[in-house]
């Protein structure tokens, strides 16, 4: 009897019906993934706070009101300040008004005439209360609650649909993609395989543990960044599973460690004081790691960028990427007091120097691009960027002059079809051949031929993805990575500090630039430098560091630390933070601003109905529980 069953199973496996079904699945899967990625982004946008003032500063002399829009606000005479005080004796960048856990602080940023709070000139960041007088040179500002001023609200494009998707439903989409790829792995190669079930099981467990940890235990509102990371990681891991179970063990381990690293970094950067104090230590640590790499590193594929300690081997440069951003980003008061970039430039120079000695040119390029992004976001100076580029071109020129063999490594660029059988074009032409062979739907996981080429699952992984899962899936993944930039951009003024803003932009830029090198290298649009595709490529260090970088994006989302979801069972115990950013009067009756509302009830209601959509109403789940809680309290 089992023989007959087995025979029947084999027959179905070998019939055209199954392969057609698999092809159909491969055509559908990218659209599910695309939907998840797009909805992640739009839900993320919808979950964001409107650009309303949170508190006000009032000029005591003239009564002029300055709306405070951000978590960190520069105050000064310069037009580039968030709060511009047009008074000759006020310094260009006089002070910073910033919000921390404890409340609002004022910090003097090396102004000429100093900052006074409650009559005293301050030396350190000083806590201020509503009603306090802040002296900015000759001008006195009073901290006030928002009145209903007619601040114009920008309409922002948030996608084609009105509602935000619930994190749970997006996670179901992720599971669907995983299931589809697991099915392909089990039945798509002509023989039945069972181990993909184990891979799927681990992914499934890991992602739901993270989900419950984040949503239930930490009661975080948003889960989009994690969903994004989980989706791309599982596509990568399941793709690599096609090469057998051994190939993917390390990748899964790195994925799990990566998630832990993600959570740790999100926690670590939550305290900005801790962050700013630890930057020096991190910078020194990064340089020491580079030094260690140069001392005991091993050379793989011409680059001395590996450290092998017994059974464990890793690429230090991948982790230094995180440190690099850590060191580069800074809070607004730091940016205003230490305006020059000298220290960061020296640090970046040291990193780049080490990478050149290791001959890891791809990573060096990534560091350089990230340096440009950070340097520009900090200084806004085109001169700095121009000088950096000029120095880079000069450096490249000198290297080509004195080390011509470096150029030889890239001599096949744009001529790869003349080098189909030698190292100058071997990998590129095969990548392109197999991308074309895959068509839009791919040939099925494990059925590819690119896997026989060296570095196919890391440097050439885009080719492998397209060959086995189709161009549609390849482009979907690229679309997702490109969306990272939009994520970072949309968060940039809403995050709790310029540290987060700069870090998330730098991280997104770094990942996208790395994607450029990975995708355009093997397709002969750029020289082949051999870097990984974030979250997709095989490579434990890369997987972990990408999750580390995603933590910066998560941290930039103000809801990560500030907003809490209402717990289902403990709605009563739920104490929404007393925070003007989140406890907006429209949905929380317990704020200090309530009397103001009551004074003008009609207008209030009107306004609420027309334009003001409270943040938690965009999250149906949150909305319901919170409102319930509110009703009960009344």
């Amino acid at each position, binding site marked *: 009897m089992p023989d007959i069953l087995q025979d029947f199973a084999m027959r179905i496996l070998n019939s055209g019906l199954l392969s057609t079904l698999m092809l159909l699945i491969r055509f559908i899967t990218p659209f599910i993934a695309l939907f998840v990625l797009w909805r992640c982004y739009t839900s993320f946008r919808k979950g964001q706070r409107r650009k309303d003032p949170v508190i006000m500063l009032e000029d005591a002399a003239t009564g002029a009101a300055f709306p405070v829009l951000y978590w960190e606000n520069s105050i000064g005479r310069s037009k580039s300040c968030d709060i511009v005080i047009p008074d000759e004796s006020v310094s260009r960048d006089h002070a910073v008004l910033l919000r921390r856990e404890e409340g609002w602080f004022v910090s003097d940023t090396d102004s000429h005439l100093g900052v006074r709070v409650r009559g005293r000139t301050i030396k350190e960041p000083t806590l201020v209360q509503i009603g306090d007088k802040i002296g900015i040179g000759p001008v006195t500002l009073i901290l006030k609650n928002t009145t209903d001023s007619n601040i114009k609200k920008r309409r922002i494009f948030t996608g084609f649909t009105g509602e935000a998707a619930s994190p749970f439903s997006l996670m179901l989409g992720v599971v669907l993609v995983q299931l589809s790829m697991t099915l392909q792995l089990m039945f798509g190669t002509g023989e039945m395989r069972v181990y993909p079930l184990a891979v799927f099981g681990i992914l499934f467990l890991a992602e739901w543990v993270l989900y419950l940890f984040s949503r239930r235990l930490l009661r975080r509102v948003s889960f989009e960044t994690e969903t994004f990371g989980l989706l791309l990681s599982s596509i990568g891991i399941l793709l690599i599973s096609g090469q057998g179970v051994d190939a993917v063990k390390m990748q899964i381990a790195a994925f799990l460690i990566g998630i832990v690293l993600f959570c740790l970094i999100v926690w670590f950067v939550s305290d900005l004081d801790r962050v700013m104090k630890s930057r020096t230590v991190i910078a020194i640590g990064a340089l020491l790691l580079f030094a260690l790499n140069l001392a005991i590193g091993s050379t793989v594929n011409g680059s001395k960028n590996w450290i092998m300690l017994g059974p464990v081997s890793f690429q230090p440069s991948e982790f230094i990427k995180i440190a690099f951003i850590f060191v580069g980003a800074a809070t607004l008061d730091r940016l205003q007091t230490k305006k020059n970039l000298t220290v960061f430039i020296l640090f970046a120079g040291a990193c780049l120097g080490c990478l050149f000695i290791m001959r890891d040119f791809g990573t060096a390029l990534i560091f350089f691009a990230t340096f440009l992004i950070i340097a520009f976001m900090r200084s806004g100076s085109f001169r700095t960027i121009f000088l950096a580029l000029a120095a880079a071109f000069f450096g490249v020129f000198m290297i080509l002059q004195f080390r011509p063999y470096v150029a030889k490594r890239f001599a096949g660029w744009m001529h790869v079809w003349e080098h189909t059988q030698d190292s100058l074009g071997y990998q590129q032409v095969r990548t392109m051949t197999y991308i*074309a062979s895959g068509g839009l739907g791919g040939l099925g996981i494990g059925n590819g031929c690119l896997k026989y080429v060296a570095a196919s699952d890391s440097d050439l992984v885009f080719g492998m993805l397209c060959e086995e899962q189709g161009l549609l899936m390849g482009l979907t993944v690229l679309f997702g990575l490109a969306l990272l930039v939009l994520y970072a951009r949309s968060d940039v003024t809403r995050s709790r500090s310029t540290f987060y803003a700069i870090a998330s932009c730098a991280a997104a*830029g770094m990942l996208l630039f790395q994607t450029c090198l990975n995708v*355009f290298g093997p*397709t002969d649009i750029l020289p082949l430098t051999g870097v990984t595709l974030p979250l997709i490529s095989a490579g434990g260090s890369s997987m972990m560091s990408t999750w580390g970088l995603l933590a910066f994006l998560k941290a930039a989302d103000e809801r990560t630390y500030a907003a809490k979801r209402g717990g289902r069972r403990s709605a009563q115990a739920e104490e929404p933070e007393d925070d003007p950013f989140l406890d907006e009067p429209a949905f929380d009756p317990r704020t200090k601003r309530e009397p103001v509302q009551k004074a003008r009830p009609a207008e209030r209601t009107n306004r609420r109905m027309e334009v003001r959509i409270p943040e938690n109403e965009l999250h149906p789940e949150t909305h319901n529980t919170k409102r319930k809680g509110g009703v009960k309290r009344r």
Partner: protein
Amino acid sequence: MKTTGFRSFVLYLLLFAFLGGIGWFVINLAANGEKWAAQPYNGHIYASGSTLSAGTITDRTGLILAESQEDRRVYAESESVRRSLLHTVGDSSGYINTAVQSVHRSHLMGYNLIFGLNDTIFSGLGSSIQLSVSARANAAAFDAFEGRSGSAFIFNYKTGETLVKVSALTYDPMHVPDDLLTNERYDGVFLDHTLVSTYVPGSIFKLVTAAAAMDTFTDWETRTYTCENRFALGDSTVTCLDWHGTLSMEAAMGHSCNIYFAKLALDIGPEKLQETAEKMGFNEQFSFDSVTTADSEIDLSSVTELELAWSAVGQADLMANPYHMALLMGAIANGGSTPEPYIIGSGSNTKYTLVSQSTANRLHDLMRTTVSYYYGDSRFEGYTVCAKTGTAEVSGRDPNCWIVGFTEDEDAPYAFAVCVEDGSSGIRTAGNVVIAALNALK
């Protein structure tokens, strides 16, 4: 904060560069995907050195020459057909890069942009190829080689259809010898000799010398030279196979007299002979089914009298390509020009003009007389044949035996060029190949 937010626009520069790159890549893929996929190293077309999947190839009668069965490439049933058409159909490993399976790989593999190389009903459509060759005639011609190396090419000079294209040395693509790549015996086995090889032409070059005489002397028909078996020239001699006495062009062509043509060439002069040869397609490359063929070579720019005399009879430093010779025969048969032979579809409408109409007609008559008076029409039963043979001496080996010519028949207008290495005589060794093929084409 505002300023930091504004400055983050730099990310857009990166984003646009990225999107631009992706767009460029997708456009390239759409434009060149078929070429990219059709690479000889592509594991989806070839696996462990053999073709996995490709469309069916048939001959003019619909006989299957190659097809894919369950991840295996299967060739024609008859071994003679398989061997004779090896260089036309191709091998499973893609070594023979001038054959249909290589040249039309992208068509045969059924590639399309949407499904790539996925085996769907769409890829099955239109991935088959019908060739104009006759498997029967090829097998007959190949058997007539009797194991010798060489090449044979026969095409219809009215339509351009290629009927016979045999290149030997060859092997059976269904039972590839294990020592194919290592044994010296198989040196050059992947070359299609009809297209990419050249041979010493020997006496068939007398047609070119004759054409040069027709262009140079108005009295070429009555011009006579005397053959006394040996003709001393400087401190060497030009020899002839026989003592022919005083001959006219017609008799000299029929007897294939070396000394007549040697003396004629000395009167014509090297410049004129070179000019005529180049007009007739020497030192020129032709194309066949998008394969560029080897050019026949001649260089008389600094020859001595002796060398010129030997060149006139095709025995010096000059080489002829069989495909080119067949084209020349087609042109003579057609009154000066010939369509480019094709093997798939209906040809490219390319025409090659290689001789003037008057010269073509005169050569036509000469070759007709050569067969009717000297070789005998009885050899070519059922056809009216015009031809010229050649037996080119090759140092250290038996001669290269040539026959070039065409049939006059309205319903079977075939031009041919056959060269057999290590043969005994032009009309016997090479002639038999043509006769076998022509009989099989009836």
